[in-house]
């Protein structure tokens, strides 16, 4: 059963140095507040797993949290490159970053296999691509009926998966809607699950076939309003595109990056203070 705790407590208790950690959310509902908290708590040697390591992992990598990255597309969506991600791979700053690189379809399949209790995933993938030459986790398998050769990759089982969601009820049942991405699979593939939410409500008011994570598959629920900023929470606030553009400048040089992180993340006690400090107030939208 999910317990309702502060994000600081959840991160301290459930995420340890050396863990494999998946912060998921496909453009939507990216758990930035949780990423910041792991940076503040100086988590080290993490294996970071994420289909699209965008700003959140750029920040964690640049602050030295990661030893390894499992991913399929590393860019600043709609803007360009991730400078800290690039710097780590190209020059090893601030620490060498081993990478395990896949395609989106494969990452999704690996999470699905993990959620499904299967040791591996099968897909029609990578035909003619150089990726399998550089990733030993991509093998092949023969169909026992047609003889076709398909790609096979091992299931993902993060030590901890961390999500942001719109809301939870008092029992800890979580509702996610809009672009639901890979969140359900990331949660069900993981050993432990932390969910930050915009709010706690009496009644989830979920449609019958909505994406609901029952309380008993969630370890901790933490209330962090605006916790997906600069990503967005459908029905609550929009994506802060201006911040994503500004990040390109902030993160381009190591010095400006460190100064910004030291001031707004390391120098703040929690996400609420960060939002005031950075001026990154999520604008609550009206059609909620």
């Amino acid at each position, binding site marked *: 059963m999910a317990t309702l705790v502060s994000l600081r407590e959840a991160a301290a208790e459930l995420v340890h140095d050396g863990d494999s950690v998946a912060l998921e959310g496909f453009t939507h509902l990216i758990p930035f507040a949780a990423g910041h908290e792991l940076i503040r708590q100086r988590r080290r040697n993490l294996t970071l797993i994420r289909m699209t390591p965008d700003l959140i992992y750029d920040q964690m990598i640049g602050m030295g949290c990661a030893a390894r990255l499992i991913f*399929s597309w590393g860019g600043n969506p709609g803007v360009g490159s991730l400078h800290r991600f690039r710097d780590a791979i*190209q020059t090893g700053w601030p620490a060498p970053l081993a990478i395990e690189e896949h*395609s989106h*379809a494969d990452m999704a399949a690996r999470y699905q296999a993990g959620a499904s209790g299967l040791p591996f995933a099968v897909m029609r993938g990578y*035909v003619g691509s150089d*990726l399998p030459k550089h990733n030993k986790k991509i093998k092949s398998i023969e169909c026992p009926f047609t003889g076709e050769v398909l790609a096979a990759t091992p299931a993902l089982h993060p030590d901890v998966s961390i999500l942001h969601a719109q809301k939870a009820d008092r029992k800890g049942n979580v509702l996610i809607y809009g672009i639901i991405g890979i969140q359900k699979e990331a949660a069900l593939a993981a050993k432990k699950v932390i969910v930050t939410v915009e709010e706690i409500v009496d009644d989830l008011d979920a449609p019958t076939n909505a994406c609901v994570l029952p309380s008993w598959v969630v370890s901790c629920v933490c209330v962090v309003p605006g916790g997906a900023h600069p990503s967005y929470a459908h029905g609550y606030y929009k994506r802060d595109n201006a911040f994503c553009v500004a990040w390109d400048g902030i993160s381009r040089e190591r010095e400006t990056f460190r100064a910004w992180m030291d001031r707004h993340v390391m120098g703040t006690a929690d996400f609420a203070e960060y939002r005031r400090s950075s001026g990154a107030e999520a604008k609550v939208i009206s059609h909620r």
Partner: protein
Amino acid sequence: MTIAAARWLRNGSVCFVGIGLPSAAANLARLTHAPDVVLIYESGTIGAKPQVLPLSIGDGELAETADTVVSVPEIFRYWLQGGRVDVGFLGAAQIDSFGNINTTVIGGSYDAPQVRLPGAGGAPEIVTAAKEVAILLKQNKRTFVEKLDFVTSSGYFERSQRSGGVKLRGRGPTTIISDLGVLNSDPATNELVLTAMHPGVCAEQVRNSTGWKLRVAANLEITPKPTARELAALRDLHARTAAAHGTAAGAE
């Protein structure tokens, strides 16, 4: 370029759309000659009908205007791999003369690259699962290259050389649409051949902007000029987008 790409898209076709230029062109098509084109974004939005261009592949506008929003594993398994997509509409960092795509590394080696690019995303499976693929890319000697530093997603050469007996359902990247013209794969050799130029462009200019010895079709065409309707629709789309985002997403 956006207009030429938009024209290429047939009404009613099911299109798996990449962000940026492909998304701009696909939506322009939807707002002009192809109102019933079905736009699928890898974020899981099926039948998205955005009024402003999305900045990211998972903008809320896509979810709000879609016929339905499914999970990311579902979009790749049931809809792409399941063979439901007519057209993959993609960007790239580099292509070669057989339509192979690089979006991974430039220079150096994979382990120690000079420039690290974002990586594969959905492309390796889009190029083989969609019935046909069009690639949108600005043309110069750094983007249209003799030899790729890395094959992220395979075009024709690699398909024949390396598919290893795996059945490929699609026809692959048949069409490249650049800011200079249109290249199509020669059915006999699979090599990309210049088949059309945009108004005001000459063949010499296209050759000089291509890293390989570019073949030019005998019946080289000139892309018809943008119509007033097309230009107005594109201008309005960009204006709405700029007003919504404070920036011109996908603008040329």
